């Protein structure tokens, strides 16, 4: 709010509007939010737990042990160490499985987001910079892609082929690159009107050089902040795929498969479904809160300094 007031009071030179200066400012602004720090701490704690989990909990707890099946969490009657959060239908430790599931989901989320970011932005920048029929075709292509809901696309491809982590990532990228293409294209459209692009052209820079060396470093960092939110989104998709049975295959723990197999025992062993869900929700909430704050900080900086 009141950006115009603030603007009027600030000498012009203190308003960098582009590039890394902005990124740093956004990060600083975001960090000034308590929410950001809390969310980051929670996320870091979970990450640490994921890495240390196997050392804290006896590794044999991941193994199946049919005699120990359906053990409730420790806080309930009948709970048994080392199964802090109980065991599943095959007697495996739920906490450990959830943590491994979290790690796998996060890995898939990050890799797929990087993939869709790189591909989407490359296409978007190219379309936006080139304009004309290249733009029209590429954008209609994103229309087509966006007209097929992610889940439908995923079910069609994964449901019909043999799912693997690579194919899950490929599907996520395939389904989500258009968003990045659209956003980066939009920014590029306005960016290519800007003086620095003209300046580079006049200096004789080739189109490729302008796109890679000049436009990309300018427009990508702000888009990257939104990508944090997408990591969480992709993790949810991964869980959905696992639930439907088209994700990474058991016995590799994924949230989807844990939850979907747990639903069968919901009434006598609810923790199989609930525990991993709570853990996932916690991880994603912290991730989303960070993303939300980053997005907010970005809006404040960009609107405040535009």
């Amino acid at each position, binding site marked *: 709010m009141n950006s115009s007031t603030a603007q009027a009071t600030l000498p012009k030179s203190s308003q960098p509007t582009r590039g*890394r200066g*902005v990124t740093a400012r956004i990060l600083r602004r975001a960090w000034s939010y308590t929410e950001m720090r809390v969310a980051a701490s929670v996320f870091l704690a979970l990450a640490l737990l994921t890495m240390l989990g196997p050392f804290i909990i006896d590794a044999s707890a991941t193994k199946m042990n049919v005699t120990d099946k359906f053990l409730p969490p420790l806080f309930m009657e009948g709970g048994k160490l080392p199964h802090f959060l109980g065991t599943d239908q095959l007697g495996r430790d739920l906490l450990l499985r959830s943590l491994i599931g979290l790690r796998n989901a996060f890995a898939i989320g990050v890799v797929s987001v990087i993939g869709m970011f790189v591909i989407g932005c490359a296409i978007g920048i190219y379309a936006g910079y080139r304009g004309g029929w290249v733009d029209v075709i590429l954008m209609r292509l994103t229309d087509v892609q966006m007209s097929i809901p992610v889940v439908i696309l995923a079910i069609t491809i994964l449901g019909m082929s043999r799912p693997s982590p690579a194919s899950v990532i490929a599907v996520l990228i395939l389904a989500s690159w258009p968003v990045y293409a659209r956003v980066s294209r939009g920014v590029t459209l306005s960016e290519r009107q800007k*003086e620095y692009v003209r*300046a580079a052209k006049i200096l*004789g820079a080739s189109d490729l050089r302008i796109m890679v060396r000049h436009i990309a470093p300018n427009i990508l960092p702000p888009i990257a902040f939104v990508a944090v939110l997408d990591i969480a989104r992709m993790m949810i998709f991964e869980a959905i795929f696992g639930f439907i049975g088209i994700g990474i295959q058991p016995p590799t723990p994924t949230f989807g498969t844990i939850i979907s197999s747990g639903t069968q025992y919901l009434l006598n062993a609810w923790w199989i479904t609930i525990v991993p869900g709570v853990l996932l929700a916690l991880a994603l909430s912290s991730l989303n809160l960070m993303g939300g704050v980053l997005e907010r900080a970005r809006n404040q900086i960009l609107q405040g300094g535009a």
Partner: protein
Amino acid sequence: MSNIITLPAGTSAEPLMAVRGLSVAITGTTGERQLLSDIDLTVNARSVLGIIGESGSGKTILSRALVNWVRQPLKVTSGTVRYGGLDLLTLPEAEMARLRGREIAYIGANPTSALDPTVPVGHQILEKLRTVSPQLSREAAHKRVIDTLDAVRIPSPAQRFDEYPFQFSGGMMQRALIVDALVSNPKLLIADNITQPLDVTVAAQILRLLRDLQKDFDTAVVFISSSLGIVSEIADDLIVLDRGRIVEHSPVSDLLHKPQHAYSRELIAKVPKLWSLGGTIPQPSSGEVVLDVRDVEKTYEVRDRKAIFAHRKVKAVRGVSFTVRRGENFGIIGESGCGKSTLSRLLSCLEAPNSGQILFEGQDIASLRGADLLALRRRFQLLLQDPYNAIAAHCSIGRTIAEPLLIHGLGNRNEIETKVKAVMTEVGLPETLYDQLPVGLSAGQRQRVNIARALVLEPELLILDETLSALDQVEQAKLLDLFETLQARRGITYVYISHDLAMVRRVCARIAVMYLGRIVELADNETMFERSAHPYTRALLSAVPTVEHKPYRMETYLLEGEPPDPIDIPPGCSFRTRCPFAFDRCAIDDPVRGADIGVNTSACHLRADSLPPADAASPSNGAPA
């Protein structure tokens, strides 16, 4: 509180508004910083109080404080703004709301974003009128808005009533906002820098309109501006604001002629001068022709919303021809929308003309591709206006300047560094900046980086597209000196594209004036400014906000309306719709400017001697001849 409304404001005994000891601070992470300190001022009824100050002096904050529009992170730290016996600053929001728009009106500097972009302008004015005067019937209110629009000379007001803000030009919008402010007949109008975004000819119109209305409506006006030339045209009294403090308060003529404060004198000195210039006027060069522009045209297509699958042609540049000689400073001036920027894109080979030729040393640049174009780019550089956006924030300064050398593959790492450092020294940048990021550089320094980047290629021709307009007078002067030095040393030819008449007057030997995509007059510096042959040039010169004696009086040459839409260019002389001297022939016959062979030419049926003689208009407020 009905007594506020009925208060006999502006009685001679009591001032309309009195500000006492007003201070405003900004609160931020680094604590509080004072932006306005101890402001005292008095607004008398029916008078125009001018406030002048440079950007950053706190003018806008002051103007907003007058209507109690101070929001986070700004904070009033002390003082009162008394209006009709009330302190506006402590008035509850609801009561303040009853004064705003009714007794006190406000117009800001940015007319295009002042109204809801999704609602027609007229409807918004109507909404306001109906809010402030609920007793008015809808029909009566509608009629009143249209009448007022008509009164501010908005053409076809009934139709304009239903048009959207984006369909209004800046000048039209400012008129509409004046209507909006005055439609409720306020006692006080605060006009914050309202001419700032406007072209000089339009600004002159608005100024005159406001002056007339102020008299008709008996409104007191607080007129805030950063241009002494403008404010002195309208204000009775003038307050000079420097870094949040009032340094001088006196009647306009006193201030102009006997400034008391050093800062006031500085301000006056900074007002651009066109005619009382010391030194020599640049003279045309007789060198070989470097740039030969022949009958260049450029048309864009836009979609037509009123017809199915139709496009309309925007004629941005219409048959422009001129020549530039080696070592010469050539100026191209014109107001917004005249085709300058299109021409600049054509000249810098970013776009190709639809027809015509641009010959650089005899070679048509439009036909160049690949390596040839790259080779041309070395000798032919363009400097852009915005020093912030033209260089990347994430590259070190050395890297930025080295970029063209890398693009052109000139030299190895060491050679490049040597070259870059040399050129940095040449433009006056310390070598220590080589490894630094541009963060924290001033506008002038950034522009120097820009210049260094262009110079490192050792170009022969430099096009300066509004290159200096973002800089203050002092920086501008320094850079102009730099250009001069470079010209002397390297024999560079400059083409200045600008709307800044004062700057062009100072440096350009020959000057082309553009109007609606065309050069209407091309003449040497002296002829242009002293004996201009085209009514548009004269209008332009007459509207320049200066505080000196002008050869062309504004009353004589003031233009009506705005340039026609480049889609619907009227037949005949395209300037005739605004020309105070237009006659029958102008509507049929399009005057042609003679070929540029070094003589002064003008596209007008009237000969220079049939126009009113320079400096010959009557001193009174007489109507145009």
